[in-house]
């Protein structure tokens, strides 16, 4: 069953090598992470952030400052129901649910300071979908499942004990310089 492993490991090595080449201009792991968004996974490297930011810069507007609106700046790659409209907050799951153990990541520009932030979108789990709350579907930098860390068409409660999808929070975990 695992006669694939050799070849796959070869492929992952190759990918890691490619990422390492891209890493050459940075000075350390932190900068590398912030710049390319790649994350070290068991010794291999998976790209988790797009570095092609050729699309336009968002103008600041009221909705971008309203965390109960799908236009709020942190939600630039959020696909789901807003936890802050379901008993939670921007970064807290509603009482009684569980935060997902794994998450996808977006890169969103804060219209106030003009900086790009890494946003971890954690699903909250083990309760029924909170479709009382607004459902947002934004996809800046979103990629299909072959870039899993950027993919939002999947249930990120997948690694939890109770996988029922409840809602999604948007947690600032880093700066993408």
């Amino acid at each position: 069953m695992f006669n694939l492993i050799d070849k796959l490991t070869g492929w992952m090595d190759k990918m890691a090598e490619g990422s390492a080449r891209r890493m050459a201009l940075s000075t350390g792991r932190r900068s590398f992470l912030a710049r390319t968004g790649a994350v070290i996974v068991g010794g291999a490297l998976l790209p988790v952030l797009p570095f092609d930011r050729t699309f336009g810069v968002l103008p600041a507007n009221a909705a971008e400052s309203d965390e109960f609106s799908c236009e709020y700046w942190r939600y630039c790659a959020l696909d789901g129901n807003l936890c802050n409209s379901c008993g939670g907050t921007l970064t807290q799951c509603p009482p009684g649910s569980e935060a997902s153990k794994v998450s996808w990541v977006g890169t969103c520009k804060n219209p106030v300071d003009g900086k790009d932030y890494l946003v971890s979108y954690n699903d909250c789990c083990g309760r029924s979908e909170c479709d009382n709350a607004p459902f947002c579907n934004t996809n800046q930098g979103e990629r299909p499942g072959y870039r899993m860390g950027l993919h939002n068409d999947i249930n990120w409660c997948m690694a939890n004990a109770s996988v029922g999808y409840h809602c999604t929070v948007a947690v600032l975990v880093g700066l993408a310089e």
Partner: protein
Amino acid sequence: MLKLTHVAFGAFLVAAPAALAEDAFTPEQVSVKEAIDPGPNVFVYQEEWKGAGSIAVFAQDSLKLKGLMSTGAMGQMLVAPDGKTAWAQSSFLKRIVYGPNEQVLQTFDIDKLTVKGEAILPPKAAMALGYSALLRLSTDGKLIFVQNATPASSVTVADAATGATLQEVPTPGCWGIYPLPGKSGFATICGDGTFSTVTVSADGKTASAEASAPIFDPDADPIFIEDESYDGALYFVSYKGVLYKLDPSGKTVAKLETTELTAGVEGGWAPGGYQLMSIAPKAGVLFIQMHPDAKDGSHKFVAKEIWAYDLKAKKVLSRSKVEDVASLVASKSDTPLVFGSTEVGKLFRFETDPAAGYALKSAGETALTGFPLTLDLVE
């Protein structure tokens, strides 16, 4: 190994984000809110027929959603008078809509929105639209009564603390559970127009029943199963708008008085909907959903107006136009709030004006899902 490392990748982002930035940025941490915000709540049971229903908890003042407690399908909700504990009876089929059915009594901690416990019920519980009379707490808070239908009617008596089933009381031809004041047991409405008073022993394990004299005519003018308690009396209303004031405290249920709500009103108005009335006790006012041009089959029509009826003066104090209210509940405060749900997913908040006969004025609206026909509130 691959699996573990990939899981670690996600966990890594959450656990060690500080490493990501070079400047003074302080990363946030994902967490779970421990408890709902304080303040009085409105509870709405969002029933589902092909999936998980939920008890939605809203702030009375803002209608802000405080969270959901998830149940199975085709269920009923029950909220303790102190607002700290809730129960739900619902169905969990092996394949959601087919396969063996496990009917479960869940106990919830409302503050934390957690499941405190669950107990398996005899697989007979009524799979019905939401009606508060189908899942009840005894007056002393020690027993849960579950309406069964196979379609033969019976009531499962369970321990409120553990959920354990204590007995099943046959109630053939009767429906609805109305806890008896001052003793353990319940009254139930019977198809011949009587009530049956079922007294349950202190340990919950035995019961005896006594039929009343005829109270209403189920053919000519049946009563809704929605009840309200006020000032020691138990109130029901009939399809044609007759208000029944009953005394449930004796060996059998006794009829104290009937009043015609629509006496002297033109337009063929009648009560309609599901949880169609609620009494604001301090005001002594009954709020009731009414529709005009009533006819055979209109008894579930949503409200075109909500009437405020003075129970002491026996007169309609005000009539407020509303949109599509199917169920309602009134608060117990001096100036009652009224919350109404529609079949299609809205929760309305109304303030009332005592100076204007407790007329309703719109004061908020939010979204509901499922079939949201049961409401409750605790101040």
